[in-house]
């Protein structure tokens, strides 16, 4: 079996603690609020309650209601207020409570946040990090399981990050908030409670780099968020049959690590991209296109996509039938191998 590449105690340069992703994000916010007095955390229920997922738990108590505060229930104004705060020199870290409730804020995100630096030719940077609990897998009500990454990745002026485990969550959030550009930070709800040893150290890899979380030579599985874990499960199973799959955690959807993707697939000659969002015009298409373009001569089979179906995100019992399953990813692997 190939090595599992992880920031763990072996390579650690900072203290290592066992944390869930939700706790790791909380730690990152504490670091950020401490290190920079301009940082503000706000949104629906993030103050007194500490957020519906407790990501902002205790922050209001620690940093005061000026730095960490509740807003009225209006997503567009939350993002609009973020623009104004940034124009006045603050570093806003707004939360929109769930993916599906980012839609009412799309105008402010796309028409204002993403292009204010451009419109003002650099006079008004937008160091706004939108924290967005995202993706499905928790049997939640309607609009609580959406995958909006294709929309954000298609919007010039936005950067997009998606952590897949607690350590990544800690480091990526530090990078996102410190970045002077607007970042949409999509937190995979299904992984909030997943505990791992987390190294509370500074991020060392630059913004826009992907990471290989498992090495393999027979094909590359490409994913982000909760699907990284699923792909690791697939790779584990495939290895039992002697198929060694590489698993690539994209983690930055903008900027996209085209070179990292290409380097992996050039070696493995096969790629399967896995995402929760519906198939058509999903980010999988962009990745498949880039990989194909970069590895045209090397590819042994067309890049496979295993994704949600082109249907509205469904309720409880249908959820596991909608999301990419281990079996569906394995079938796609088989298809590439037998092509």
């Amino acid at each position, binding site marked *: 079996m190939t090595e599992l590449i992880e920031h763990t105690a072996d390579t650690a340069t900072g203290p290592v603690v066992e944390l869930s992703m939700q706790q790791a994000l909380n730690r990152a916010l504490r670091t950020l609020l401490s290190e920079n007095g301009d940082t503000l955390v706000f949104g629906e*229920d993030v103050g007194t309650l500490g957020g519906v997922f407790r990501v902002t738990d205790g922050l209001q108590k620690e940093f005061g209601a000026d730095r960490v505060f509740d807003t009225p229930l209006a997503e567009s104004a939350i993002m609009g207020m973020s623009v104004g705060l940034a124009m006045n020199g603050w570093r806003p870290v707004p939360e929109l409570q769930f993916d599906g409730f980012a839609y009412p804020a799309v105008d402010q995100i796309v028409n204002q946040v993403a292009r204010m630096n451009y419109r003002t030719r650099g006079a008004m940077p937008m160091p706004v990090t939108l924290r967005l609990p995202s993706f499905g897998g928790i049997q939640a009500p309607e609009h609580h399981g959406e995958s909006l990454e294709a929309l954000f990745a298609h919007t010039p002026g936005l950067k997009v990050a998606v952590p897949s485990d607690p350590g990544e969550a800690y480091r990526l959030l530090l990078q996102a908030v410190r970045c002077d550009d607007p970042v949409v930070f999509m937190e995979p709800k299904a992984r909030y409670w997943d505990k791992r040893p987390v190294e509370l150290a500074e991020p060392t890899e630059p913004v826009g780099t992907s990471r290989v979380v498992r090495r393999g030579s027979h094909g590359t599985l490409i994913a982000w968020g909760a699907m990284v874990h699923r792909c690791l499960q697939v790779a584990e199973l495939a290895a039992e049959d002697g198929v060694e799959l590489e698993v690539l955690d994209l983690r930055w959807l903008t900027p996209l690590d085209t070179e990292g993707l290409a380097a992996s697939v050039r070696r493995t000659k096969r790629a399967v991209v896995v995402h929760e969002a519906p198939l058509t015009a999903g980010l999988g298409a962009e990745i498949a296109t880039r990989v194909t373009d970069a590895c045209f001569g090397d590819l042994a089979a067309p890049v496979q996509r295993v994704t949600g179906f082109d249907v509205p995100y469904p309720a409880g019992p249908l959820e596991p039938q909608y999301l990419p399953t281990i079996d*569906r990813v394995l079938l796609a692997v088989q298809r590439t191998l037998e092509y």
Partner: protein
Amino acid sequence: MPQHASVGRGSITVDHLPPDLTRELYRHMRTARDLDTEAVALQRQGVFPAYVSVRGQEAAQVGSAAALDPARDFVFPTYREMAAAQAYGVDMVGYMATHRALWHGGLYDVAASRFGAVNAVVGGPVPHAVGWAVGERLRGDDGVALAYFGDGASSEGDVHEAMNFAGVYGAPVVFFCQNNQWALSVPNERQVAGGSIAARAEGYGMPGVLVDGNDAGAVHHATAEAVAHARRGEGPTLIEALTYRVEPHSTSDDAGRYRDDSEAERWRRRDPVALLREALTAAGHADEAALAEIDGQALEEARRIRDGVSTAHEPDGSELFTHVFREHTEELTRQRRTWKEEVEL
């Protein structure tokens, strides 16, 4: 501002309403209360992944829904209108299915019930009510649309846009805000600038009514007036029913993190079901025996619904694809085939 204030915090009166109507209100409120209790239990048992309680808001919901005509009007609910659905005559097994997560929106027939699908977007359905009402007037019909929304929802842009549209078009809409004083963890004073949702009505040139939301008779009266006003072609009304969310926001919520239970406790003592029960007796609209009979029927009905939803079939996976379009596409047929081959296998 309250046009139909209750006689006091300790009691309400239903003297102004017909006895049979008040008994009906009571029956629905009682049923909703029992069903709410069952639903919380179902969540604890793991049958429902989560549930949003309507406890304490039964008077606001039943009083208003019962003032409508389910044969010609149309209700636009949020996710917390179980008692309204019950009073309006919705198939409650189908309604509760949304809480078992069998189907987002519920499994009742929205067209036949004239009660919109459960809608989880705060503020989102309010403009639908306006569109429906504009359409009703265009056709020359006299139905009225009633949109439920919360105090939190009043902050959403959509609610403003909808009220302005309704005012401009003189549309037959009742905007019914249940101000239960909390939007998840945020209380009115950090949610509602100016402190009154009803006061916003004037800015749209429509009547604004503040009513005691725990007084079923008062709510019914205020709603019936607003409905009649709209039906006469005199346009929209905004009603703010002041009530209280005595339970946490949902079964996933921990209200102890943001509010003192003593406040909730005070409101639990103003229980709208108990208030109505007393008022019925005081008005001589029902004696203890009659009330006990209704209580029994309500409990039975609640249990029937509980059993119905607990044992309802899960939708087949193929339903993923069935209702995406009316006019099917080859692409979805292909994806359905993939599903059949790869998922159902």
